[in-house]
């Protein structure tokens, strides 16, 4: 699961196409406009490579960090059916990370370098995972609505121009659609269950609504720099477009279950557009830059796992175990 790639607004490098061979660049852009896929050994502008690495890497990190809040509930899942399903779901997410790191490696950055950038805080991951899953119901809301958001984002990006990423996303989306069903089934069970269960799921939804609204990234009004990425089919839909799609698909389903959302201004207007209270983008920036409730904990856990596993990786570190072939 994954929201939208976060681009540091202070990073000016996106504007730099300087130094690229204009003819090669023109041919490259022609190929993309014809709908052709770019493959690892093809020529590509340095900025295209850089933005894709950043995006795929953030996506991969989100999958492994996302396994932490949900993973906590594997050992607590109520009953065999839920326990087995949640284990399989979180395992899928880790599998997605594996696919994605391998897609990013085709662009020239090793998995080790990416993980290193994650644990030193240099790379980002989806902001939602900096919030805690307090109860079982939080894990259910994540599985339904965060995965729903991820599907919207990933179905769009699967049509992007970089072949290995698109193919990985096709596989990932198939699995995510099962996660969505799993999450929905859980939320329906709680929302139609006992009083304790209904209270639990409402509280979780209320807690998760602001992070869900943040999920697709800052509003188009304040998010620049997407034009060239969209021309290169690195980014396939704007943040606001995806947010609208999400609201349109899921708000009615949430209301149907008798649950309420903590935004009095949320409604669909006559033009068919959803209106809502503008999410707190200052909070979003604060959290993505390390100030969220779980940033430190998530990275500490990841760092501990890396450190504890170092001896295993060193023991495996032989030439034949290195690869750069995409898994999808």
């Amino acid at each position: 699961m994954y929201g939208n790639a976060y681009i540091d607004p202070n990073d000016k490098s996106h504007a730099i196409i300087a130094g690229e061979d204009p003819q090669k660049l023109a041919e490259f852009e022609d190929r993309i406009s014809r709908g052709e896929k770019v493959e690892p050994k093809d020529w590509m502008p340095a900025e295209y490579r850089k933005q894709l690495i950043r995006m795929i890497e953030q996506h991969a990190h989100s999958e492994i960090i996302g396994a932490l809040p949900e993973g906590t509930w594997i050992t607590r899942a109520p009953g065999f059916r839920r326990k087995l399903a949640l284990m399989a779901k979180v395992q899928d997410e880790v599998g997605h990370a594996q696919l994605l790191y391998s897609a990013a490696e085709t662009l020239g950055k090793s998995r080790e370098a990416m993980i290193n950038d994650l644990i030193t805080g240099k790379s980002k991951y989806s902001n939602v995972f900096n919030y805690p899953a307090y109860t079982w119901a939080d894990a259910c809301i994540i599985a339904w609505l965060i995965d729903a958001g991820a599907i919207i984002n990933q179905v769009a990006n699967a049509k992007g121009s970089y072949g290995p990423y698109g193919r990985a996303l096709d596989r990932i989306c198939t699995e995510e659609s099962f996660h969505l069903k799993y999450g929905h089934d859980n939320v329906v069970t709680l929302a139609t269950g006992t009083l304790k269960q209904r209270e639990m799921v409402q509280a979780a939804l209320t807690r998760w609504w602001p992070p869900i609204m943040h999920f697709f990234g800052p509003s188009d009004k304040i998010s620049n720099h997407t034009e060239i990425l969209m021309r290169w089919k690195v980014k396939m839909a704007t943040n606001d477009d995806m947010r609208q799609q999400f609201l349109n698909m899921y708000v009615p389903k949430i209301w149907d279950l008798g649950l309420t959302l903590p935004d009095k201004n949320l409604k669909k207007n006559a033009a068919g557009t959803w209106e809502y209270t503008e999410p707190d983008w200052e909070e979003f920036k604060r959290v993505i830059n390390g100030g969220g409730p779980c940033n430190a904990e998530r990275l500490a856990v990841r760092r501990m796992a890396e450190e504890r596993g170092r001896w295993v990786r060193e023991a495996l570190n032989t030439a034949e175990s290195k690869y750069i072939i995409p898994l999808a």
Partner: protein
Amino acid sequence: MNENTIAAIKELLYKMADDLLIIGHRNSEWTGLGPILEEDISFSSMAQDKIGQAQTLYNLLHELGEQEPDTIAFMRNANLFHNAQFVELPNNDYDFSLMRHFLYDHADQLRFEMLAHCRYEPLAKVARKVKGELKYHVFHGNIWVVKLGSANEMSHNKMQAALNLAWNYALGMFEEGPFEELLKSEAIFEGEKSLQEKWLANITPILLKAGLSIPEPKTWKPVLGGRKCEHTAHLAPLVEEMSEVFRYDPTANW
């Protein structure tokens, strides 16, 4: 079947199912924390198999008049579990988890192979299916134990220390129950002694290949008690955690 035979089968099923549930739970604790992603995925995969197998065995118990699988697994207190103490020990580092998985899965695979010919057909049927799944668990354990046992000095030392730590607990898996003779004479199960001998014969060449030494037989002291529901301090918190949500509202459908 007479009452004694049924009691004997139940005792056998309880210890096997509880072993599987608890080691499956421990394996699942690696989710998100493995030394490499591929191992995260492997341990999760094995955990799913184990917990699924536990559920299947609890179903057999249910057919013999015990409660529903969810009730047996999620509503019993730790002092009613029949698992070997070996499986309830915390994961520690990957070295111990891997060594435990290797030692446990070899025993489990043999147990299910033996039970594939069991005269109690519902169990024989399950055993024939499960042994196919366990083949891959054993395969996984073998590859990793050999690799890490012999990769470099540090990994070798860690794996040897893990083997030393695990050994007496592993022997506790073969703690005999009150129905050994009956199970044998009824052609249900050949018995723990026979299982332990076969296990030793299977693991010895692999440990040798890994460059690891089995502790001297004169130091062997099986850690017993698990089969009689005596446990270390580690089991109660595990069971509490496992059943936390289920018990939050026992009247609910989850």
